[in-house]
């Protein structure tokens, strides 16, 4: 079957900086496709080219059989978009915002009132329909924005970090909404920095870093890339890290990585038995051990294996730089 979205060798340069560097993926109809990567990886740029906000420097994008450069308007008409920041005109009421959105997608005038009322019901904003959006809470604006991007019944919905910055309650609601849209048959592309989100929602995931896809597959395929084994995690004092790593190598032949006081290694064979022997070895080595655990690999382990850095660290750095921005 022909894929619903087909992206081939997509490249985007800003000046001579390469933001997206030869990205290819295809998405089946009705799938949720996740683009997972740290801040600055090129997620927004990738979807911006699909949306026609930015023109690709190179490469081919086909959506529902239509080439985005040859049929820009037709492609835009079948895509709905929700940006990372909530874009709602706060000078206008909820209803006016929706009507404006409907107009810009050229929905016939006679259909607009019923579509707008439906959207207001769907987002539970009926009571606030004629209140200026500047009086809405963050969660309300986000809900308004989501139904606005679905007004013209797009076949493909693109969500840029839909839950970044939302509290747990709103995040859970957003996940529910996204699953419901999938159940209605909408194909969805979402970008995220959150492993749990990609794992929980997506049928297929592309992990992207520095503008390149470094791994692609279903969540379980990706986790299997980490070999079949389990992940051993030891937390010790920073000064004992080297000692423990040497011991793991010498006695068990394990190659480990270390971030601050945390050591990680993949245990491939008979994990429980090996785990037992490692515990004993740690005991007799007298290194101060704060915690030892053995777990199934996560997407973060995949990311570490491929890039040597943790996605979580990248995430924290990004969060820190973002909060700096907000303060300034």
């Amino acid at each position, binding site marked *: 079957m022909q894929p619903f979205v087909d992206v081939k060798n997509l490249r985007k340069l800003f000046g001579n900086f390469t933001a997206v560097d030869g990205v290819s993926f295809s998405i089946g109809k009705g799938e949720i496709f996740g683009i997972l990567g740290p801040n600055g990886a090129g997620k*927004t740029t990738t979807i*911006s080219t699909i*949306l*026609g*906000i*930015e023109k690709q420097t190179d490469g081919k994008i086909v959506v529902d059989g239509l080439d985005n450069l040859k049929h*820009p*308007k*037709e492609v*835009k*008409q079948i*895509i709905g*978009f929700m*940006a990372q*920041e909530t*874009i709602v*005109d706060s*000078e*206008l009421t909820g209803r*006016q915002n929706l009507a*404006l959105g409907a*107009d*810009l*997608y*050229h929905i016939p005038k006679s259909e607009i009132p019923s579509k707008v009322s439906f959207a207001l019901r769907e987002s539970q904003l009926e009571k606030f329909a004629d209140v200026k959006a500047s009086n809405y809470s963050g969660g309300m604006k986000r809900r308004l924005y989501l139904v606005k991007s679905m007004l013209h019944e797009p076949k493909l919905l693109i969500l840029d970090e839909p839950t970044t910055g939302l509290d747990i309650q709103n995040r859970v609601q957003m996940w529910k909404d996204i699953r419901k849209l999938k159940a209605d048959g909408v194909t969805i592309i979402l970008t995220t920095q959150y492993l749990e989100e990609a794992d929980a929602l997506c049928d297929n995931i592309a992990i992207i870093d520095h503008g390149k896809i470094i791994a692609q597959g279903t969540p379980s395929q990706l986790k299997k890339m980490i070999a079949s084994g389990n992940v051993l995690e030891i937390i010790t004092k920073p000064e004992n890290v080297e000692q423990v790593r040497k011991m793991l190598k010498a006695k068990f032949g394990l190659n480990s990585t270390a971030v601050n006081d945390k050591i990680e290694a993949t245990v491939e064979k008979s994990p429980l038995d090996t785990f037992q022997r490692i515990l004993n070895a740690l005991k007799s080595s007298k290194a101060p051990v704060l915690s030892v655990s053995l777990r199934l690999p996560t997407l973060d382990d995949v990311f570490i294996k491929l890039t040597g850095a943790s996605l979580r660290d990248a995430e924290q750095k990004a969060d820190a730089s973002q909060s700096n921005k907000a303060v300034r």
Partner: protein
Amino acid sequence: MQKGIDKMEINAVYVLWLRDIKRFIRAKSRIIGILMMPLFFLLGLGLGLGSLIHLSTGGSYLDFIVPGIIGMSLLFTAVSSGTAVLWDRQFGFLKEILVTPNSRISIVIGRILGGASTALIQSVIVILISILIGFNIHMSPALILAPVFMALIAATFIGLGLTLGSFISDFQGFQLVTSFFTMPLFFLSNGIFPISVLPQFVKYITYANPLTYGIDGLRITLSGSGTFSIWTDLAAMLISTAIMIALSAYAFKKTDVG
């Protein structure tokens, strides 16, 4: 197919124009703010200073300066509505429009028409108030060209605002740059003084300033006398409008929406 798309573009222009008007009507404080400056000029210069001034060209100073003040308020409103692109970009609204099936050029045109309409409404209010305080509006067939001049002044300077707004991304620097353009544009025009009293080198600057021809056109059509011929004024304004709109469409095409 081609026809259908053209109709869609017209619809988009209309929708964006309507948005500007709705926002203008809603923001009552903005309307008052926008009228304050011309009113101060009207009272301070027109009545206060005007009582001391006798123009060598004859006629009252109030009749001379009302078209100048209308030109000024058109200039300021137009530049600031052009720069609203910056706000659109800041709040992501630009991105929001760019993902819809409409071309960038209809976005620019919608903005220009919206800005021009609000600037025209404002000018009409200023004219009505001027008449109340003693402005003698000159009744002649040429009067029908007054709104044309107002629209051309508005379009030229919305184009300037759009161009500036597309290039400058930092908001604070932006207000500085805006006044860096608008102040000299007004004071180095024929808005407050007749060109004939200006020193030679300032004269050359005012000749190069499109606002001079716009205000002169308003003087001919509203007060009945000007420096150039009405056709010179009209031609100059048409040329400057065409140049500024082309420039802004180009700048807007290049603008970064992120």
